């Protein structure tokens, strides 16, 4: 029978572990959002590139910078769009690796929490079960 003090210690540890897990999950969701944005922009840029390729040499290209429409050279515009596409693909790749790391960390943390949960004294099922339930719902989200 573990003493109440030890029990509380374990509880606190469980809570901290659960918080870490939450943080990691938030990071993952943020990562997802940024990735989504980049993906959309990448798609748009690819469409623009396709249209620019279809243009003849003497067509006028303008870029909207703030309230100003600035005339641009076709070649320049092509180059800019291509560079953007490259930059965005690199960003996406970076985000992918970060996401992978976060997920791994999340899994390991989850296992640790589960382990902690099972080794807890069964007399006090309230907090632990709450923690684990909380963890389950957050994972699902």
């Amino acid at each position: 029978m573990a003493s109440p003090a030890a029990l509380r210690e374990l509880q606190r540890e469980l809570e901290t572990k659960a918080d870490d897990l939450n943080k990691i999950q938030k990071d993952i969701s943020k990562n997802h959002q940024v990735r989504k944005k980049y993906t959309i922009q990448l798609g748009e840029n690819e469409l623009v590139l396709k249209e620019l390729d279809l243009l003849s040499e003497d067509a006028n290209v303008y870029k909207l910078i703030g309230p100003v429409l600035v005339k641009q050279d076709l070649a320049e515009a092509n180059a800019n769009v291509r560079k953007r596409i490259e930059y965005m693909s690199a960003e996406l790749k970076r985000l992918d690796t970060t996401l992978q790391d976060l997920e791994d960390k999340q899994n390991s943390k989850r296992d640790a929490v589960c382990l902690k949960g099972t080794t807890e004294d069964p007399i006090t099922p309230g907090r632990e079960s709450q923690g684990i339930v909380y963890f389950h719902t957050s994972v699902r989200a």
Partner: protein
Amino acid sequence: MEEAAKKGRVTPLASLFPVEEAQKAVRRVHETLSEKESELDRFRGFISDNTNLINLVQKLPEGLHHNIMVPFGKAAFFPGRLIHTNEFLVLLGEGYHVERTSKQTVEILKRRGKALQSQVESLKATMQDLKAEASFFGITASEAAEGLVEIREDYVEENFTERESQSGPPKEHPPSFSEADKVKVAVEDEEYSCMVSRLDELEKAEYEAGYGNETHEDIENVAVSDEEYARMMSRLDELEKEELEAEFVNERDEDNAKLAVNDEKYAHMIARLDEIEKEPETECGNERDEDEKIKADFDQSSDQISLDKINRFSEEYQSRKLLEQTKDKKSATEETLDKRDTQKDLTDRLNCTGLTVQSRPKEEMSHGKGLVHGIMKSTPLEKALVLPEVKENVQAASSLRSEAPLQDSKPGFDSRKAFTGSIIERAHNMQTSSSQQAATSSQSTVTQPSKPVSRFKMQRR
């Protein structure tokens, strides 16, 4: 009872798929489905905007300038003029605009419309999948709620390995039900194997007797095989009777499954028989080579048609309709057979019978027969008419050719020697030695009413 003999496991479905979870899954899928639907609506809005824009862009260059009300700020307009009506600044994305004419703008917009359409298609596909998922979950949930039970039993049958235990989707059949089916199937299996062996013997006999014979010898051979055919047909009759009984006892689905199985066997047997028919027809003169080919094609096509019909009929029970139709077609063919200059009509009729879902291969056979005999005295022109017809039928039922395993064994037989008749199987009368074409057709019509649910008829010529 038989149940005790078989091992069985009874599992309540609720244990496999808990009711609440299934319902939750249904709800989740429904939510995602509604999301997708709203996205679909958005896409539809985009597409309609795009089409409106295309129309506008096409209309503007119609005038040098247009008088319009120009928006000014948030809530004001002033009258103005729209000039340079053929110059458009098109937004390509990412802040890039390009000057284009009306036609070029329309092209850009059309490309955008296509991209939107493809997105809509993919979204629709996803929605379909989700719907299927939702329905599955719904069914599982309801079944589990009802307390449906899954019963698994081992099937002990040497010959017939296809009819394994009824696993997978749960059914509410009592165990003894499946036993009776299996027993019946076993009985039919034995008969089938007997008939197969018999057919093998017949094939060998006729193949050996095939080379270098005249036509009358063919008939002799044919007469010899007649007896064997008679025996086989009696066997077939028995099987049919059994199936008829089974039909009225069992449920429809099981019937169809079983009958499909039996039909396959019948199909194999018919294919076998036709092969045997073809064998005796070896070389009988080069002048008839073309005819032979056509006949071979016809026989093959009629085989295929018959196989096709048999399989299709196992799915539908349209006995009365078929009887009437066959009667009509039969009388028609009788007339045309006599005339012989009605080649086209025959092909049309063959077409008709090919199109209608009739499992009466004998009709096709008799048609084929009439046409065949017509061909023997026909002109090349008629053959030309016939050949494309044959090709159609060949293509239509080519898949069944591959199914019949017995076909592969005899690639080199000559159609001339084959018995180019169709085989009519009669449930109650055995008329195996009839040799007139017209007579057989009338006979077939007579016997049809007596056996409304006969799946196929093999007419002997």
